[in-house]
């Protein structure tokens, strides 16, 4: 609509006329464009109408099973989602205790949302994160404060997806900072180790890293010592994400003017003091947008843990689809699941665009 406002006719013209002029300028400015508009507009309307008819008009919202659903209408069978949403969101977490998983989900979403506000980028938020993670740990594992203990193998659905993506984000970021510094270090051995780690992780698909964690890690541990499936997946995702974030941070380090390093040296600051107070704050600010981009990718990537049979959102949906009473309702299930992922990812990508503008404000002249 931005282009429309620049082409507005004299004030006082009514809405329809304004729209007509706008349409003329942006949709029908040539014969070819007119044909294209009609063609694509018609196609879009046809598709939208089809989806609306299937998803709303002909849809069935209440039914005991798939047969009843199909008898009641030809459209989507949302009764499936009404029946299964709780399983898809919380999976095998004990039914009676699912309020705990729900609380964890709300807490984690809330904390993530709060961390997106630049005004809250301060020490207290970090403390709040630690507190929230401890609370979440207590709620998920239980076994204290009269909460029934829950095996981590039963953690599933949305809380698991959130835990995996948020924890891998936090640990991955810390690891990434060290990897990036290591790759820029002037100690050859440190540089070599970090470079090899980063390049190997970035060179292989995530699925191989997950296989490594799920199939190979048990072989490397002494007998009698086992690591839970969730933790193994978390380690794999963390290492994978860290390699990508390390490259982002390295780009920030390289973009920093050399004078900053030299000035810090001239002040006689030690390496760690210099890095902590001068270099990292500036380098990371430069690369916040690509870092957020990586987080979106990481959130989507957590769905791969379903391949190594963890019960994340993706696999709870697949399991819900196996139910013989509700067979074949894949579209409904995937649309429900897709909308969860879409809302989260879309919000994050819009946020990162907004942040980019905000962070560049000071640089514009």
């Amino acid at each position, binding site marked *: 609509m931005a282009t429309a406002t620049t082409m507005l006719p004299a004030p006082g013209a009514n809405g329809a006329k304004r729209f007509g002029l706008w349409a003329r300028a942006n949709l029908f400015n040539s014969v070819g464009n007119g044909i294209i508009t009609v063609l694509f507009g018609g196609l879009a309307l046809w598709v939208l109408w089809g989806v609306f008819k299937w998803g709303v008009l002909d849809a069935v919202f209440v039914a005991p099973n798939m047969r009843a659903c199909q008898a009641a209408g030809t459209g989507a069978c949302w009764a499936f989602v009404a029946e299964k949403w709780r399983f898809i969101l919380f999976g095998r977490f004990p039914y009676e205790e699912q309020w705990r998983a729900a609380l964890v989900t709300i807490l984690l979403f809330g904390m993530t949302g709060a961390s997106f506000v630049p005004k809250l980028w301060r020490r207290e938020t970090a403390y709040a994160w630690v507190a929230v993670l401890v609370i979440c740990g207590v709620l998920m594992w239980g076994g204290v404060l009269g909460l029934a203990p829950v095996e981590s193998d039963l953690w599933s659905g949305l809380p698991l997806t959130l835990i995996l993506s948020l924890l891998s984000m936090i640990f991955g970021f810390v690891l990434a900072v060290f990897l990036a510094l290591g790759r820029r270090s002037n100690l050859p051995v440190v540089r070599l180790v970090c470079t090899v780690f980063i390049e190997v992780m970035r060179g292989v*698909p995530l*699925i191989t890293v997950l296989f490594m964690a799920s199939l190979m890690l048990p072989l*490397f541990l002494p007998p009698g010592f086992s690591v839970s499936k969730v933790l193994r997946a978390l380690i794999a995702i963390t290492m994978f994400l860290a390699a990508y974030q390390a490259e982002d941070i390295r780009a920030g380090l390289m973009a920093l003017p050399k004078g900053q390093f030299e000035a810090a040296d001239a002040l006689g600051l030690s390496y760690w003091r210099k890095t902590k107070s001068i270099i990292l704050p500036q380098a990371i600010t430069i690369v916040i947008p690509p870092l957020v981009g990586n987080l979106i990718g990481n959130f*989507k990537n957590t769905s791969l843990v379903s391949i190594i049979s963890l019960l994340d959102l993706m696999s709870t949906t697949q399991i819900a689809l196996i139910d013989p009473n509700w067979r074949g309702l*894949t579209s409904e299930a995937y649309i429900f699941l897709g909308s969860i992922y879409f809302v989260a990812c*879309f919000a994050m*990508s819009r946020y990162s665009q907004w942040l980019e503008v905000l962070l560049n404000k000071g640089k514009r002249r």
Partner: protein
Amino acid sequence: MATSGIADRGSTERSSDTKIWNNPTVRGVFWQIVLIVVVLGSGAYLASNAFDNLARQHIASGFGFLNREAGFDISEKLVPYDPSDTYRDAFIVGLLNTFEVAGLGVVLATILGTLIGVARLSPNWLVSKLAQCYVELWRNLPLLLQLFFWYAIMHVAAPGPRDAWNPLPDVFVSNRGLMFPMPVADPSHKLIWIAFFVGIAATIGLDWWGRKRQEATGTPFPILGAGAALIIGLPVIVFLATGAHLTLDKPVMQGFNFSGGSSFSPELTALLIGLVVYTASYIAEIVRSGILAVSHGQTEAAGALGLQRGKVLRLIVLPQALRVIIPPMTSQYLNLTKNSTLAVAIGFPDLVFVAQTQINQTGQAIEGIGIIMATYLAISLSISLLMNIYNARIALKGR
């Protein structure tokens, strides 16, 4: 002598002030030794654990299994293979399948992505918004979900062969996959291929000669038209001269299924659609930003020089846009190749699928995962090496 003695004393005094552990060089060496010890030590510890565990579980180690009989069938293969062949053959079949998906995917995703990226810049508001919707929709959904979705469409929603969808003449989509016609091989086709490569070679030669002439006389040579005429014209002439032997093997309904033509299994079709649709949404953004990156002044300056529109695009805009487009495009191609490993989730027999079957059968997880990782590392590292060479070549020469 005396001065040197004083200097020596001075330096010893200073070094006695600064403790040895405050010397940056010494500290550097020390920490590196610590790192080496930690890395090698934990490596050795893990390896010894692995040896113990393998011995206890009676799992063999080493790549000897590669020569043993695989004993499992692979549903899709580009080369002959049957269960009595070795694991090595199975891995080759898997690798070729990976290459097939990656190759087709890269070509199709580039075409679709470029179309959508250009549509995104269209002056037509509707077209640009639709393209934006496409990009936002597919970028913000996990690829795995998209693959399951396409797989469900192929398996649940698609009709049986009898009522197969018929989007193009002689192309059928059913729950048995995608069927399409294929030209029947003919001896004359060999000559056509030869003509094709001769055309390419001649174009390269002509281009070289044309550049030389332009440098010497200033007269440009219309290499684009001449090249197209050579590369397309020569094979067509040979095709007509050899008697225009072309019969299409078309898929025909016979009994309960199609026979004839070529086909992609439902798994391959779903995987290809998923990878192409997903990657195209990234490529669209790359193409868009690449075109936008060429400043308007460049186009105007070219216009002021009196260049025609086509020449402005070909000589001014495209070379500069490609400089921005090609590096991220390559990483998208690599991503597509790596993402093709998700094939394992919908049962397309790619490299990972074969490795997983091998691991299940032999229990040799380290070797199986090692093979996959080495393959992908080799692909990734060789592509990034080529990219570095390319980037160095096209880097703007600073004054």
